[in-house]
């Protein structure tokens, strides 16, 4: 996949990801309704909210693991949420996903994990694939770990290896599910560095689901707040601006990490 070259203004006008009037349900249980937002190319967009607010469910909709109950999801201007299987599968290689626990394929070595997307979607020779794998593992600081199985490395390394796999095809959009969960502060901060580096170097659009405040203020260009009490989004903007001028009490309490008013 080639990443977008920001030269044509017309292309810039099409958001990388757009959500219109999305309603999410588990069977008949309403999770969130009336979500509308768009993610601009090359920005770091954070989906934040309390535990159980539907952040991960929203991510599952964005990466195609769940279909919207109502509303639409567009990927680079093309219908994604309502597309049939074949159309969705054609779009999926253009996005990379870093799952909460990495989700590396346990039967494959790190090199094979990173190589699998390349063998599936490119016509590269074995030698060229090895070079790409070495580069991607090198970018996340895992050069030399090619032959290791996921079970033999630490949680932080697994996450970085999974990131190498997610960027194997140079995706247009990268999704992160709770990147800092389960990581020590140093590893979490290194992952934030990597996110910023990917944005700066490759111009990758990055969507992050997290409730880690430190990370939000460090990496996010804009953030969306899912409010569990109203079952819809109640804030959208830069995290610093939202903290200065919170649109409601829930956002204020979330961004200032306060439990005031809570019983």
């Amino acid at each position, binding site marked *: 996949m080639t990443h977008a070259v920001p030269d044509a203004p017309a292309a810039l006008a099409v958001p990388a990801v757009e959500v219109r009037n999305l309603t999410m349900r588990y069977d008949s249980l309403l999770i969130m309704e009336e979500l509308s937002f768009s993610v601009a190319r090359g920005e770091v967009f954070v989906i934040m909210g309390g535990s*159980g607010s539907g952040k991960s469910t929203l991510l599952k909709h964005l*990466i*195609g*693991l769940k279909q919207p109950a109502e509303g639409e999801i567009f990927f680079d201007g093309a219908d994604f949420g309502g597309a049939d299987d074949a159309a*969705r*599968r*054609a*779009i*999926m*290689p253009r*996005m990379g*996903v870093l*799952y*909460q*626990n990495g*989700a*590396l*394929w*346990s*039967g494959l070595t790190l090199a094979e994990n990173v190589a*699998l*997307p390349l063998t*599936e*979607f490119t016509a590269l020779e074995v030698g060229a694939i090895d070079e790409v794998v070495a580069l991607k593992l090198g970018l996340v600081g895992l050069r030399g770990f090619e032959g290791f199985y996921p079970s033999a490395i630490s949680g932080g390394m697994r996450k970085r290896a999974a990131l190498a796999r997610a960027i194997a095809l140079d995706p247009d959009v990268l999704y992160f599910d709770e990147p800092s969960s389960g990581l020590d502060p140093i590893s979490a901060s290194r992952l934030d560095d990597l996110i910023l580096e990917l944005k700066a170097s490759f111009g990758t659009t990055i969507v992050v689901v997290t409730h880690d405040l430190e990370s939000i203020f460090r990496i996010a260009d804009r953030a969306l707040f899912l409010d*569990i*009490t109203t079952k819809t989004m109640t804030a959208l903007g830069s995290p610093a601006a939202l903290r200065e001028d919170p649109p409601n009490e829930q956002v204020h309490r979330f961004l200032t990490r306060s439990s005031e008013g*809570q*019983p």
Partner: protein
Amino acid sequence: MRELGFEAGALGAWDSSLLIFLLQARDHCEAGGLRFDTGGLPDPVTRLLELARAVPDRAVVPDPAHASRVERLGAAGLSTWDAAMDAVTFTGQVTDSVIRLLLRRTRMRWREFWVVVQSNSSGALGIVTLIALLMGVIIAFLGVVVLKRFGAGYYVSYLVGYGMLREMGALMTGIIMAGRTGAAFAAELGSMKITEEIDAYTTLGVSPVDHLVMPRLLGLFVMMPLLVIYADVVGIAGGMMVAVTLLDLTSTQFIGGLLSAVTLSDALLGVFKASIFGVIIGLSGCMKGMQTGSDAGAVGRSATNAVVMGITLIILANAVVDWLAALLQI
């Protein structure tokens, strides 16, 4: 009495039992219209009492009212329908994958395939040998006891030959493999479901069926007939041991009697059944694995369901094949 107060000045160490006592006392006071005065209690106790009574920040969703018998029947019907549709969908996905493999639109994952072949050959030989041998021995014992009464002990080789080749070789191997390999498939794929490995295939835009199900299914499809041929040989040998020991028969007579009665089509019927059982075990194991839920007990439930479904379908398929064989006079 209008008020309940406490004098806790001399209170030393205390723990949760004090709080439970106070909460119960407060409930009694409220029920009886008494004032409950916490003034005399230490501050930490008062604060904890308040916390214990705090309203949760999210309303508790009450359990739906007790469903009537008709509603439960309807729900059970719907869930059975859903399960049937899931099975049809999964079989369709696998068929689609097989067709794409034959048309060379997707690659076979040979490494996984050989892993399955290995675990279902050398890995399974011990248990298959034991069960097949005992099966042959049991059939021979049965033959010796029944046929000897009619002075037809010689025909015990018929019984062992027909019994092992047409029925018990395939059936027992199928049941062993459903318990062994079917459960393993369900547990492996179930764990992958929980660790999001299957989602990682899906969101890459590649089919998890191609990568995970096909190698397992084809590996078992190839190995089951070979295992059954092996089980047949071992079972007949076991039967021969019993016949030679308990009857006035030599092994040459036993084998001669066997070969004069049993035809190749008897053996092929067992091998044909083995292929079908291989598909059944592979499909039920992989399907239950892919349908695994997300809680801690889900993998165990999937493995159990895979074994139950596998064995049930094997016995059902065995009856259907026998019926068809009888119709076609095979």
